[in-house]
């Protein structure tokens, strides 16, 4: 069934390429290939990445193309399977002979494709697979920007430093889901005690799916923890928030790992989802050029108030790759790589300089949900709203 789907997508893609090449015989298009999980459990997110890619292509083709040539995507469906992502990356490089690679999703797929890109000396701009994937000595891979669990709470930490010590929370309850993402979130709060003087009183992990958050919240309340880190996903985050309300647990701050930045959080939780802090590497409220236009496009085409974060990521990775190609004035992968390593790129997520590993300087934006909207709190330069701290008590 899935095989059939993949075949159909291939045929359609092929048909589109043929039609496209017929229309613009003048310049041979630049082929950009790779795979995304268009079906399977990551399909929803990947769909938005693909839309971001396609919108970028549309925009650049309207302006006369990349290096004067139109761009075309060959997007295979890896069915949310990292092994297939590798196969399709090889196929794109060796069979389709693509000119450029695009970044895959999620981190596991990106991490698996990075060595392939290195082997064939192809520049690979993606989210990467957390810090480990960038410490393997790959030279052609860039996190432009990356999604780094290890940096996740940088924005929060930096902001908390601006709070007078006496007003800071003293005792932290940390509940972390038992998976690699949870582990990297934990990594990002290593300096909580040293830098901020917040003592981690409870540090527990749980398996997904979390059966019930009541015992966790009960423990946090009994241990008098005045800050709660819920290092989990949407589902367990919702459970934690609701248990905190039910037990009338009122810490000074609640920090949610992943999930509070997506629209469902405010839509489904309503007021109960307010005042939760989280991090993000990209946000549609950022002031960097391009964000406003993307929001308008998404509003017009899909009726959403602003672009979903993965639409932005897709677009942003292409911005980085585009600047590398234009900077190098060539499709020579090594030249693109060397240009990217020596120049600053300007994207909707911010301005980045890449180090030897292909990573920008560690950064992360602090967000807080205020009145049902995700606001940017830190760094000060991107702030859209003053933080609400300490968190008001449950009503």
């Amino acid at each position, binding site marked *: 069934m899935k095989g059939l789907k993949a075949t159909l997508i291939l045929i359609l893609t092929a048909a589109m390429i043929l039609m496209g090449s017929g229309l613009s015989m003048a310049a041979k298009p630049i082929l950009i290939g790779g795979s995304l999980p268009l079906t399977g459990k990551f399909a929803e997110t990947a769909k938005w990445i693909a839309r971001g890619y396609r919108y970028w292509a549309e925009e650049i083709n309207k302006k006369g193309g990349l290096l004067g040539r139109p761009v075309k995507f060959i997007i295979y469906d890896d069915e949310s399977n990292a092994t297939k992502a590798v196969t399709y990356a090889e196929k794109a490089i060796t069979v389709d002979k693509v000119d450029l690679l695009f970044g895959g999703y999620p981190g596991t797929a990106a991490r698996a494709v990075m060595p392939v890109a290195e082997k064939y000396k192809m520049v690979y701009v993606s989210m990467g697979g957390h810090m480990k994937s960038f410490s393997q000595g790959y030279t052609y891979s860039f996190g432009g920007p990356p999604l780094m669990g290890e940096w996740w709470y940088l924005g929060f930490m930096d902001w908390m430093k601006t709070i007078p010590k006496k007003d800071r929370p003293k005792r932290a309850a940390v509940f972390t889901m038992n998976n690699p993402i949870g582990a990297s979130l934990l990594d990002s709060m290593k300096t909580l005690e040293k830098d901020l003087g917040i003592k981690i009183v409870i540090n527990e992990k749980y398996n997904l799916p979390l059966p019930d958050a*009541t015992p966790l919240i009960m423990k946090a309340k*009994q241990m008098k923890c005045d800050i709660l880190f819920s290092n989990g996903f949407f589902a367990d985050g919702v459970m934690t928030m609701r248990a905190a309300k*039910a037990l009338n647990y009122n810490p000074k701050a609640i920090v949610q790992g992943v999930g509070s930045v997506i629209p469902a959080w405010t839509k489904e939780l309503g007021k109960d989802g307010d005042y939760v802090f989280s991090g993000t590497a990209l946000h549609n409220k950022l002031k960097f050029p391009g964000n406003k236009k993307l929001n308008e496009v998404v509003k017009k085409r899909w009726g959403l108030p602003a672009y979903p974060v993965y639409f932005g990521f897709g677009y942003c990775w292409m911005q980085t790759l585009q600047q590398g190609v234009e900077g190098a004035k060539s499709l020579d992968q090594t030249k693109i790589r060397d240009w990217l390593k020596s120049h600053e790129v300007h994207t909707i997520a911010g301005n980045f300089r890449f180090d030897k590993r292909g990573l920008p300087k560690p950064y992360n934006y602090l967000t807080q949900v205020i009145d049902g909207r995700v606001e940017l709190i830190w760094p000060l330069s991107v702030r859209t709203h003053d933080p609400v701290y300490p968190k008001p008590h449950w009503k």
Partner: protein
Amino acid sequence: MARRGRFRPRRVPSRTGDRNVTGILVLQSVISGLMIGAIYGLLGVGFSLVWGAMKVINIAHAAFAVLGAYLAYFLLKAFGVDPVLGFFVILPFLFFGGMVVYRFLIFPVMRARDIVVSSMVLTFGCAIVIENFISLIGSPDPRVFTTRYTGRAFFLGPFAFQWPQTVGALMALAGMAVLYVFLKKTHTGKALRASWQQPEAARLYGINLRRISMIAFGLAVASAGLGGIAMGFVYSFDPHTHNLWLIYIFLVVILGGVGNVLGTALAGLLIGLLNGLSLAFFPYQWVNVITFGMLILILLVRPAGLFRSEV
């Protein structure tokens, strides 16, 4: 229930002695585990029913559960119908929908040489169709029930019971009780058990296997819907959630004995208990090791499941 549920949570007696904290927490975790376990149990019982009655492994069982949760969510959002009442609204749709699915999808493959495999392929397809159908009419975003008693709890001694979880668990227990009484006490329920124990003899005495299987499938789908709504009180759900739920259904059914309703219900509680205890008691890494270790041991020692495999 909702109206009386407007309790102001009383102050939790806060004791600083670490032992008390731990003791209460362990019991609190047991409570939490049993509540979710009851829901796993109900989902497993419905799955078992279909397996027992027609030797069909219904991969779509959890997808029907998610469908039930979505229908209840829709009723809640659009008309403010509480999901408990919502279940009774959607019950006939699920029941007759299940019968239609059986009659036009499952029954035609019942004559295939290998029912187990062909039904797995077929119901896998069903699951994908349901998943895509939900994504299509709703959006694929995660959903949660927000009722008047969401975010409220009542206390029994030092133990907290969140209303939504409690309602979900009670629904699951009621569902299991209804299925049990149906199988044990009603004429049709007995005929169902008879036809899965001795299909040929059942036919000899006038039991129409097609009709009885159709009813069983309808009931299973309805119970899946109930289980899905109960799950919805505890978890958020999205069109893909059924994959996760299915793993637990398998676990519960294998542990409880395929086709064994009472055993499956008990296995659900047991798995919930283990999960609950994992929060408070033993190191988190052990939970899956223990659960699956237990599973392997049981399959080696008692391949028919932990409990006597009688219906």
